[in-house]
């Protein structure tokens, strides 16, 4: 369970998050939508401390943010997938996946590669294990990035606009992988502009605007019966 209490984040004078309270339960899929610049991504980035919260508390599986050690412990529990994949270009697909398990969990190469190959099978890329990232399409790179995050055996996955940098024909293959993870019961928070996907996969949808949660609820309620004017306005622009 991830508990966020009173999370605030400012960059200089610019307030991005103005008090977010959010609990993500085990096996729950939370989709975060909202206009760009509303702070959606910042919430995810605060959860694993890529951004230092200005105020508030984040508790991941009972681990609260304290010293550097607990930050690294939290990061081992929380996998993150980025908009721009961020694969390591000087390593093969397999090396990308085994690096962290070998260095932070002291897994042997054999053990780590065994798991990596299973994960590559899961994302449908077992034949690409010796390829370098730049030889892969965007969709393939993002699936490798998902496999890499899963290799740390996280309890939670954070997806920061995972399909925004992809060509349209590659969006589906990535969404399918995420959807399968959801079916397996992985708890996750997804920031996305894919509203159809959000409806299919979400247990709960949050609409964020100007750094606060304006509205939250079941996908059908948010998409078909929004209560807030802001939500209606936003949805009318994108649906």
């Amino acid at each position, binding site marked *: 369970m991830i508990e966020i209490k009173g999370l605030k984040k400012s960059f200089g004078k610019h307030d991005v998050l103005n008090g977010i309270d959010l609990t993500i339960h085990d096996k729950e899929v939370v989709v975060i939508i909202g206009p760009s610049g509303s702070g959606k991504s910042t919430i995810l980035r605060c959860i694993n401390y890529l951004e230092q919260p200005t105020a508030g508390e984040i508790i991941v599986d009972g681990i609260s943010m304290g010293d550097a050690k607990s930050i690294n412990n939290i*990061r081992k529990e929380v996998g993150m997938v*980025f908009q721009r994949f961020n694969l390591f270009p000087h390593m093969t697909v397999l090396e990308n996946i085994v690096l962290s398990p070998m260095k*932070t969990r002291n897994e042997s190469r054999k053990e780590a590669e065994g798991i990596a190959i299973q994960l590559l099978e899961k994302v449908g890329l077992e034949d690409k294990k010796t390829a370098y990232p730049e030889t892969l399409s965007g969709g393939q790179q993002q699936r490798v990035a998902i496999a890499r995050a899963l290799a740390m055996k996280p309890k939670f996955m954070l997806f920061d606009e995972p399909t925004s940098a992809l060509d349209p024909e590659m969006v589906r293959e990535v969404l399918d992988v995420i959807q399968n993870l959801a079916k397996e019961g992985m708890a996750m928070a997804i920031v996305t502009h894919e509203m159809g996907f959000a409806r299919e996969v979400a247990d709960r949808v949050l609409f964020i605007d100007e750094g606060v949660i304006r509205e939250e609820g079941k996908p059908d309620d948010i998409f078909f019966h929004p209560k807030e004017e802001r939500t209606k306005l936003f949805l009318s622009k994108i649906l």
Partner: protein
Amino acid sequence: MSFDFSLIWDSLPLLLAGAGVTIEITIIAVGFGFILGLIISICRLSSVKILKILAVCYINIIRGTPMLVQIFLIYFALPMIIGERINPFVAAVAACSINSGAYVSEIFRAGIQSVDKGQMEAGRSLGLSWMQTMRYVILPQAFKHVIPPLGNEFIAMTKETSLVSVIGFEELTRRGQLIIAKTYGSFEIWLTVAAIYLVMTLSIAQLVSFLERRFATDDRN
């Protein structure tokens, strides 16, 4: 004015031996400079404030004072503090290494900063520490970017080692001076010395562009 070819021919063995010493000191200085520069650049970029301040001070002091003065300080002033004479070779290597370290650290800093920010974030989000991400993710990518400027530093250092002739250390330039003192053949000897430096620096330039090509192709599958 007559040009004495036989003087060049006769002096060549001594000058080439001097060139050997120049190469030796350059390689040692750039080697230490490399290690020193790597450490300093990492301190400079770390979030530990005291390390950052120390690194910035080091870089500014070394880059802001003439290398000639640094050599004098190490060879003449330092013995007054430690109460012991310093061997010219040690002084020469120390001065060149310390100097090179400052320049190399800035080369590394630029190389590290040229690596996309997302790489550090990806490493950290996978639970790697800052240092682990640096070592396995950032530096291997940065090294490729720093080969050309490091080559320049190597060439610059080859030439700058001529400054240690002032403390009587017998590298190429000092050998030239000594031969001229005996033979008065300024023109022939300095021309030869210049030619030898040129051959050395051009060879390094060749080596660097070879390495550059190697690493450029290594990138692909």
